């Protein structure tokens, strides 16, 4: 099961945003008098009402400031419910969304379109049962979302370098840049996979293809570079396609439905990825850069764990002790395979050493599978 689901609310919001952009007439149940007015200026974010019933909502935005702004509606943990970018000075915009669950939300105005924005707390009443608020966990989720976003943001330039090398036909340079371009993705793969359509485009292996599915993404290029040792015209197009798909991922990370449970399960899934794909050498079968992915998976899992640790420590101190120990043990073991600022090629790692790595992954993944239970207590 995937730890992260992309949110249905987010999908509605995206559709609504599209409509707004295209300027089509909107069908809306809400009357204009029910709409929430947001007046955004360079230093203020004024909201006409801070409490409204669950259901379909409409927000009329006026940018009264001098900077281009954007407005977000956030659910707990900074999950984007809906957003509108590029609202010019002295212009108006309208966004809609469906909020099914009651609870605390926030509206943020971001003059200059950066930073966390100026926040206003709002309350949604009625509707579905509110999720129990837990500020500590909400903070962990928000932090993790930032981390996931940062990984995507950092991946784009790294991947662009790789794509440029492919497009210039430079096999050696592209090989050097390949593994590095994947680190951000590998660290947060369960989040990326929650957008069901992106993963099959960028990270599918040849044996994972559906019938009639065209092979695109990193691993196709990996095969060209290492196995076929040449770059053809199709590969160059695939490099561009990879960038398009990764930018799509970058844009959507903020809408992923992240919960403490999905963070914990996502951490476990990263270890599962290691256990089934990296320890066996299947993931990077041509480049043998499996240990780079391995490290990134462990780092991503550890990030989730570190954020959830304060909560988990309260409900299961022994689990936290064990996880600290096993994370450290695995990282130490993995460190033995470092080679400069990267890792040894996995085809140089013998059977006995692979078993040691596998045992260490099991030793960590087994207690890690209990983390979700500890934070859900």
């Amino acid at each position, binding site marked *: 099961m995937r730890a992260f689901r992309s949110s249905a609310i987010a999908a509605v919001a995206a559709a609504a945003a599209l409509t707004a952009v295209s300027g089509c007439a909107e069908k809306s149940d809400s009357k204009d008098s029910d709409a929430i007015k947001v007046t955004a200026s360079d230093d203020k974010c004024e909201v006409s009402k801070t409490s409204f019933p669950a259901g379909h909502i409409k927000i009329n935005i006026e940018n009264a400031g001098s900077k281009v702004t954007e407005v977000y509606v956030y659910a707990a943990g900074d999950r984007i419910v809906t957003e509108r970018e590029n609202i010019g000075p002295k212009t108006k915009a309208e966004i809609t969304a469906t909020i099914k669950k009651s609870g605390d939300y926030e509206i943020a105005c971001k003059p200059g379109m950066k930073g966390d924005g100026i926040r206003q707390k709002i309350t949604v009443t009625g509707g579905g049962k509110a999720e129990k608020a837990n500020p500590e966990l909400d903070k962990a989720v928000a932090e993790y979302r930032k981390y996931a976003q940062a990984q995507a943001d950092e991946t784009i330039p790294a991947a662009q370098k790789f794509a440029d090398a492919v497009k210039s036909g430079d096999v050696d340079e592209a090989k050097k840049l390949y593994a590095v371009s994947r680190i951000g993705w590998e660290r947060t793969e369960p989040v990326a996979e929650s957008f069901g359509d992106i993963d099959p485009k960028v990270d599918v292996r040849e044996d994972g293809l559906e019938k009639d599915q065209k092979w695109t993404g990193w691993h196709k290029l990996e095969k060209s570079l290492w196995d076929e040792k040449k770059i053809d015209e199709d590969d160059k197009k695939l490099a561009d396609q990879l960038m398009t798909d990764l930018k799509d991922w970058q844009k959507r990370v903020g809408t992923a439905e992240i919960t403490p*449970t999905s963070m914990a399960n996502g951490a476990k899934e990263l270890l599962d990825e290691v256990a089934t794909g990296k320890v066996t050498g299947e993931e990077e079968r041509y480049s043998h850069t499996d240990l780079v992915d391995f490290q990134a998976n462990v780092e991503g899992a550890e990030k989730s764990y570190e954020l959830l640790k304060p909560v988990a420590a309260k409900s299961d101190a022994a689990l936290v002790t064990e996880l600290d120990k096993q994370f450290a043990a695995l990282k130490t073991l993995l460190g033995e395979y470092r080679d400069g600022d990267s890792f040894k090629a996995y085809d140089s790692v013998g059977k006995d050493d692979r*078993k040691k790595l596998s045992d260490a992954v099991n030793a960590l993944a087994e*207690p890690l599978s209990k983390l979700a239970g500890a934070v*859900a207590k």
Partner: protein
Amino acid sequence: MTDKTSKTNTTDPTDPTGSTGTTAADSPESAPAAAKPSRRSVLGWGGAGLALGAAVAGGTATALRLGEDAAPAASAGDAVPFLGEHQAGIATPVQDRLHFAAFDVTTTDRAALVKMLQEWTAAAARMTAGHEVGEGAVQDNDELPPDDTGEALGLKPSRLTLTFGVGPGLFEKDGKDRFGIRDRRPKALIDLPAFPGDNLDAARSGGDLCVQACADDPQVAVHAIRNLARIGMGKVAIRWSQLGFGKTSSTTPDAQTPRNMMGFKDGTRNIAGTETDRLGKHVWVGGKEGPDWMVGGSYLVARRIRMHIETWDRTSLAEQEDVFGRDKAEGAPVGKQREHDEPLLKAMKPDAHVRLAHPDSNNGVTILRRGYSFTDGTDGLGRLDAGLFFIAYQKDVRDGFVPLQTNLARNDALNEYIQHVGSAVFAVPPGVRDKGDWWAKALFA
């Protein structure tokens, strides 16, 4: 049925770790079991027959029954008492299936190892009684992976026994006294010498710990090893494991000896579970021999013996019978009528297997055999990877397997058709006595 069910639940198990003062009623181990049907109670009646096996189990395992009377082992599906003077799975009537696992200890933390042994013992007590481990296969908190892996749900206890041993590596590895017990290593726990013809695969040999799971249902045996391995993760890692699909020995007097993959009955003079005197003489470590923590225990030798069955199958019946020193149909020794007739060794060829393996050819050396046939698919050369997973118990390896195998390895006509490819030796501590006891507790005392 209701009566039986309630008995099963209340006699439950276990928590040998309950030395902290929790009672069975409020211990976290047993509480969920009471709320849930056990594997046995789900099925209710275990089925008829095999009362003989039950009687033998009761008689020889000298079970120390605690609390209420444990449900009598009345059928092949029933439970074998876990607690006792000796571990079950040695003198216990041989079950049909085997899953044997050897583990490397990966932790360097003695306390963590001891805690795992307590958890293993608790889980073993539960599983042999037909219960799920921990909070079961379907617990209340569905955010958590279940404690029990679940594939034995609805299956009977199937006479599951779990027999635990410790290998030489636990006492010392790479010159290091890993857990402060080097000086407690029994003299009888030797590193086996190399025998002529050995072709041992290191990856299928050795191990710091072992668990022998025997059951009449293969899924019950596999479930037990799988769950113990899972509990052990981070402390131990499976080094190798072996499935055995058919028993090749019997410890039940007068029963027919099962045939091995060569089609022969071998080891017909095995020690029976009822032969208390022979068990005491050849199998159980006595107070005289020591060390103290091993009194009531035994020593286990495991050998993975590959059989070249394709060449064997092309061998004439006459030669096959000469090689063993028995006739194939009945299993009678050369010149005799019935399987259990006393063999006349001189009537056999000098290199016949039975003649060479007989106590009279080995100054009385006698071992208790508990081997299983295996077939692990094919070997990539179009041949079955089949053979005998040989298991023997004895009071002292130096007076048991070593002289016997020294003789066989040199002289046995069977060597043309077999090869020893895996080997391990373990000290098997005495049985778990009560709820405050656990596997090898005295070793770590």
